[in-house]
């Protein structure tokens, strides 16, 4: 116990820089871990909030005439506002009716309760939302009533809800569905991936001023400290740093939780209080991280014997052989094999999946194993350069390539994984919404489409709005060809003016003078006479198809997307009966103000269904962009931590070599030569390892994407631009980190340092 006390005293009085750096590194570890592990509970909490607000309805027919408890009737309308999902619940409530979480009472007729973001939007643009949120705002919805802090949500009190449902109870599911295993694995992988550079920083920090620690332990051994006591003292130093780090990490987590929520790829954001790991995860992190710090400190002493006369290494420095390249080459070889036999061994097939996972995993491990060899290659390249600085740097790298590679490894692994993700994410996105994404390229921005109109629409008024370029209503009719035997032989056709549709879509559809057009592939024969049917399949009129039916040029995605009914476009003038409005197409100038102006002019039922293509794509796109942003932020964070490791290592290496540096300066070596040698010593191993990591990522990505291409016939390109940017960022981080330590070279490289020593 007293040894621990002495260790505590030494930890606090000895190298405080090491203590602070280690504690900071542990703080980052704890904060990152808590943040990453809290993401899944945050997602779960979001689902729980939605489910708690959802409700089970009453079968009103079954209970008609019976005495019933106080009721609330709700009608929910989901729509969009300025690119964000937007929900309004119309409420007709009796006193004492069941309420969703967060509501003390329901708004009465003419009253409105809104989320904070919706109120801000209403204050900023009162006219745009007046029709959709009618009434006087009487209260703000608290957090408990919302699924996210940026949700646009309102309860609107009305005297009579027309199309609503009577609530039996709130809370649709007793419990939300559990988080999928894949997501859990992904979160843990993300946490571990981010941990790698942090652990490197912890390891680096514990090695700081190793020689002064060795001197201290030797002095203690001389006056009778047993080996066990020396280890306990070293462990106490690690423990102090670990405990201080956990305290700092908790503070970081608490302070940065709110901004961190903005980085999570969930629509409407996440409440800070929901970003909270589970109790087990808290325990693992709070107890495990200090234990890890202690273990790191003790393990770093494992290979040395501390005696009363000093420290000696138990094992000599190992030579770095080229065999270290074998694992990464085998890993890449497996991926190449998968690519070459893509027709038989594609992922999904047993062997293909094995090759993909085995090859990818072996490549990651192999890069770490190969790092010293690749660093030595950097040293050898340096030794061929003219000048003293490269020779000095090459000598240092060659003497211990493993030490050079230690700091580099974390950054390189992160770079490899990031590079692979940058290549893979577009595939994920394409699988989810390629048709929408392609449509965005072909259709004008700010094109609103609606669902069926129940109420009459004043199209003239909409057309007259500023920013509205064109409006067309699409109708639907049913026709049947000659020889029809049963109602199933009837076909739908879209009823609209071709020229008006062309104007609305902003495209020349090639309408010509014809009043009937084919939409895509169609087997209607020109010149045929067809029957026009009503809802009861009775013939209301006859229509003669023209001798020539031109085909309109629509993007294929528009045809696949259920935009049109059937495969014929018929001008309304050819039909005797009104075809109604199944869809309005409103082309605006693309500004948010024009889109919202058009929505506000529509009847309430249409205003909520009116959606732009950008908004539809955003549903899947936001998640994709969120993941992409998370990957980029992860990369930048990892590089920052890696750069911090590098700066710490460089500063310590310079400090430990102060005598030899001062001697070199005393002999007349210019300081700039030493500064350059320090830069090269750190930069060369990093550069060669970054090149190796990107090359491995390029081969791995090309193999994987090539295999997908063989499988699906789609073409994917490698994201060279993003990779170059990632490499550039890594290079700049390395340069800045090393450059930050150069003043130290100038300070301790002066000949006076010899006296001080």
């Amino acid at each position: 116990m007293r040894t621990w006390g002495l260790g505590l005293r030494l930890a606090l009085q000895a190298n405080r820089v090491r203590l602070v750096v280690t504690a900071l590194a542990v703080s980052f570890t704890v904060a990152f871990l808590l943040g990453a592990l809290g993401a899944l509970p945050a997602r779960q909490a979001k689902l729980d909030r939605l489910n708690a607000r959802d409700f089970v309805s009453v079968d009103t027919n079954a209970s008609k005439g019976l005495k019933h408890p106080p009721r609330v009737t709700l009608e929910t309308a989901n729509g969009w506002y300025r690119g964000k999902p937007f929900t309004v619940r119309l409420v007709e409530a009796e006193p004492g009716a069941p309420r969703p979480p967060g509501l003390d009472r329901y708004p009465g007729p003419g009253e409105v309760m809104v989320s904070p973001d919706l109120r801000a939007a209403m204050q900023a643009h009162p006219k745009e939302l007046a029709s959709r949120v009618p009434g006087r705002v009487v209260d703000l919805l608290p957090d408990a009533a919302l699924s996210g802090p940026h949700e646009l949500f309102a309860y609107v009190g009305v005297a009579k809800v027309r199309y609503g449902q009577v609530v039996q109870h709130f809370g649709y599911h007793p419990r939300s569905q559990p988080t999928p295993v894949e997501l859990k694995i992904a979160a843990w992988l993300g946490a571990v991936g981010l941990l790698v550079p942090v652990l490197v920083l912890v390891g680096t920090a514990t090695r700081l001023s190793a020689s002064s620690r060795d001197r201290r332990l030797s002095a203690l051994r001389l006056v009778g400290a047993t080996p066990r006591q020396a280890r306990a003292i070293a462990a106490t130093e690690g423990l102090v740093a670990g405990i201080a780090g956990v305290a700092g990490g908790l503070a970081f987590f608490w302070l940065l939780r709110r901004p961190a929520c903005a980085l999570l790829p969930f629509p409407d954001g996440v409440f800070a209080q929901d970003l909270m790991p589970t109790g087990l995860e808290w325990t693992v992190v709070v107890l495990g991280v200090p234990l890890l710090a202690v273990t790191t400190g003790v393990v770093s002493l494992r290979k040395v014997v501390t005696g009363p006369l000093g420290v000696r290494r138990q094992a000599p420095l190992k030579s770095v052989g080229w065999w270290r390249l074998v694992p990464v080459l085998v890993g890449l070889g497996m991926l190449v094999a998968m690519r070459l036999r893509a027709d038989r061994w594609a992922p999904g097939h047993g062997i293909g999946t094995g090759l993909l996972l085995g090859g990818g995993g072996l490549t990651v491990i192999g890069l770490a194993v190969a790092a010293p060899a690749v660093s030595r290659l950097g040293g050898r390249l340096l030794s061929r350069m003219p000048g003293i600085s490269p020779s000095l740097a090459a000598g240092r790298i060659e003497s211990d390539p493993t030490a050079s590679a230690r700091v580099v490894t974390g950054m390189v692994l992160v770079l490899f994984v990031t590079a692979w993700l940058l290549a893979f994410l577009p595939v994920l996105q394409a699988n989810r919404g390629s048709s929408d994404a392609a449509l965005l390229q072909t259709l004008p921005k700010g094109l609103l489409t609606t669902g069926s109109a129940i109420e009459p629409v004043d199209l003239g008024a909409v057309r007259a709005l500023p920013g509205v370029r064109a409006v067309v209503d699409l109708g639907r009719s049913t026709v049947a060809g000659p020889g029809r035997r049963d109602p199933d032989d009837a076909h739908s056709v879209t009823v609209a003016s071709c020229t008006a549709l062309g104007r609305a879509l902003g495209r020349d559809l090639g309408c010509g003078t014809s009043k009937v057009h084919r939409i895509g592939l169609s087997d209607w024969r020109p010149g045929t006479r067809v029957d026009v049917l009503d809802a009861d399949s009775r013939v209301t009129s006859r229509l003669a198809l023209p001798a020539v039916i031109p085909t309109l040029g629509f993007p294929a995605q528009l045809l696949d997307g259920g935009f049109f009914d059937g495969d014929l476009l018929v001008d309304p003038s050819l039909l005797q009966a009104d075809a109604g409005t199944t869809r309005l197409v409103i082309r605006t100038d693309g500004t948010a103000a024009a889109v919202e102006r058009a929505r506000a002019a529509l009847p309430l039922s249409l205003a909520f269904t009116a959606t732009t293509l950008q908004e539809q794509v955003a549903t899947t796109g936001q998640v994709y962009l969120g993941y992409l942003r998370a990957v980029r932020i992860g990369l930048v964070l990892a590089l920052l931590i890696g750069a911090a490791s590098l700066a710490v290592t460089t500063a310590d290496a310079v400090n430990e070599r102060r005598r030899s540096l001062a001697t070199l300066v005393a002999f007349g070596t210019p300081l700039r030569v030493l500064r350059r040698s320090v830069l090269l010593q750190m930069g060369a191993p990093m550069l060669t390892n970054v090149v190796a990591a990107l090359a491995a990522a390029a081969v791995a990505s090309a193999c994987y994407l090539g295999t997908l291409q063989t499988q699906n016939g789609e073409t994917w390109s490698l994201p060279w631009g993003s990779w170059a940017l990632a490499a550039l960022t890594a290079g700049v981080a390395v340069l800045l980190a090393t450059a930050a330590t150069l003043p130290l070279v100038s300070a301790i490289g002066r000949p006076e340092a010899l006296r001080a020593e």
Partner: protein
Amino acid sequence: MTEPMLTARDLHLSFGASPALAGASVDVLPGEVLALLGPSGSGKSTLLHCLAGILVPDRGEVRYRGSRLDSLSDELRSGLRRTDFGFVFQFGSLVPELSAVDNVALPLRLGGHRRRESEARALEWLERLEVADVAHKRAGEMSGGQGQRVAVARALVSGPRVIFADEPTGALDSLNGELVMDLLVGAAREQGSSIVLVTHEPRIAAYADREVVIRDGALAAAVVA
């Protein structure tokens, strides 16, 4: 005849291919000051380290109060260094991050004594060695002479039976060197401790009761002062 406190017989020790000790034998009597003399590289420091149980000889034996010292475990030899032996070396024997009083109290604290008691005894010794004014300064904030007197205090604080001093005045001027030796030898004699002193300075060797000369790792001559 007085039984030797420490006995070394036919010690051999090599560092790699270089022999440091080649059959050295020596006795240390209770309360005597024994000087080990010899040119650089003769093996006198290595012999001192073997006598103190810091190094274990390849061959031969070291006995302390009749029991084998060289075959004891590291743990037990560490215990002896804490309770029965004291050390004053030329450099680096103080823990630079600790104050003088903490340094002196170290052997006691490592031996399980309470902090307050350890510090009180440490302060007594610092006063006796006339360095109480630097009690709360760290090693780097003291002069060389003060630092060596603190080291002497630490060597004496646990009441050792043997003090090993390897060039204790090597980094000091003659005046400070003599002061440190006066204090070391005076205090050791007062509590009946033996001193094994490695030096190449005749002036310092003059403090010894007996001198032995080491050459090529073995005893070359013995002189009673």
